[in-house]
């Protein structure tokens, strides 16, 4: 198989790689915020639940979580494995990344000076207004570098979808590598991920720049 054929075949999986990537971001970014807020709840059972969630999802391999979400329903309830693996894959990625994002959000929220809350309170802002208008924009600004790190990792982690044979770029590459006993697909995959992350780095850099019109 020529290099060109390998590249073309693997590119066909790129759409699915991107689907995992973007859908995970779309779900995990808000879900992480919810988990972070639950974690900060003064109601003990709620914060305990969120802490346990974070600790379990960060403390076990994403690969196991992928297997659990994809095949768990079958073994537990005899529900047939869904034909569109994108759904379990995105669920597994989203709940996993939400745990990481939650920790980042929490650290950002905790780093906010109490004076910002006090000034808002004295000016009569409600708790929700304070959070949305005053706290959240500054938190995002603070955590953006940490968020970028996680997003770069997410790009690479999409390759884990091969464990449930979801036909994304790396899964295809691995199949070609096996059938052709060739190392070339791995090199191609490496180049794809690298280019993907260069773009991610560029975009995040632009966002950081746009947000750094003020100093804290």
């Amino acid at each position, binding site marked *: 198989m020529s290099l060109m054929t390998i590249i073309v075949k693997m590119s066909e999986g790129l759409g699915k790689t991107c689907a995992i990537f973007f859908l995970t971001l779309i779900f995990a970014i808000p879900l992480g915020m919810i988990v972070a807020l639950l974690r900060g709840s003064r109601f003990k059972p709620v914060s305990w639940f969120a802490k346990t969630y974070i600790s379990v999802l960060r403390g076990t391999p994403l690969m196991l979580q992928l297997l659990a979400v994809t095949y768990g329903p079958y073994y537990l309830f005899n529900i047939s494995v869904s034909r569109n693996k994108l759904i379990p894959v995105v669920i597994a990625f989203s709940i996993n990344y939400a745990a990481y994002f939650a920790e980042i959000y929490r650290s950002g929220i905790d780093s906010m000076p109490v004076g910002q809350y006090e000034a808002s*309170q*004295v*000016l*009569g*802002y409600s708790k929700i207004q304070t959070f949305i*208008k005053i706290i959240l924009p500054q938190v995002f600004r603070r955590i953006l570098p940490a968020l970028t790190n996680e997003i770069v990792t997410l790009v690479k982690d999409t390759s884990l979808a091969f464990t449930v044979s979801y036909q994304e770029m790396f899964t295809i590459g691995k199949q070609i590598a096996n059938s052709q006993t060739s190392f070339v697909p791995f090199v191609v995959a490496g180049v794809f991920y690298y280019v993907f992350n260069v773009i991610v780095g560029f975009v995040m850099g632009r966002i950081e720049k746009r947000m750094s019109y003020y100093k804290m």
Partner: protein
Amino acid sequence: MSILEMKNIEKSFADNHVLKGISLHVDKGEVVSIIGPSGSGKSTLLRCATFLETIDSGVISYDGKNAAETVNGKCTYAKNLNDFRHIFGLVFQNFNLFPHYTVLKNMMDAPVSVLHRDKEEVRAECIALLDKMGLAEKANAYPCELSGGQQQRVSIVRALAMQPEILFFDEPTSALDPELTGEVLKVIKQLAEEKMTMVIVTHEMAFARAVSDRVIFMDGGVVVEEGDPEEVFGNTQSERMKQFLRNYDRET
């Protein structure tokens, strides 16, 4: 009638009894300065008045309406505390401006999104206010682009934009370099001349003496002496006050 009336305020942090049955009233148009040694509870008193701390017992009322009251030893706060918050403003020692908002947005946002006032009307008022304070050309600057003195003046106009009936200051010049305190004190003085009701916690004795209608000397969570500034500064009977002023003179 008093705008603010605080009666028999008690406040402890764990077993640190900070306010020991302190009372304070402020009439319309009055400028009251609170002085006293570090740790005497001045900030705590202002923070209780502005609901940043909850009192253990006592009464806080604004315009004759109780915001907090104590019945049979049980202290309760009014349900509509936010309505009371519109009556006062607070200027912090370290400004607490919103760094992601421009100067104008810092001022306009609360009147518009809290008081639901007309945006254009608020804008016009805020610009006029900035103009008056000599900050007109800073309207679109971010707080980080301003000097400390300018930031504190902006935090004063931000409070004024809410059109409070009474304005509290907690050591408004303590975080500033000495050469910047003057511009902030000048603004407060100007407000005093316009009969703005103000309560000012300060270590600037000369300023307190010059600007106040009444001076309160606090020590150990109680009011030790209270009265006309000339009386309190010039002719105090209290040994603790004399000691405090001697220490102050030595430091400066």
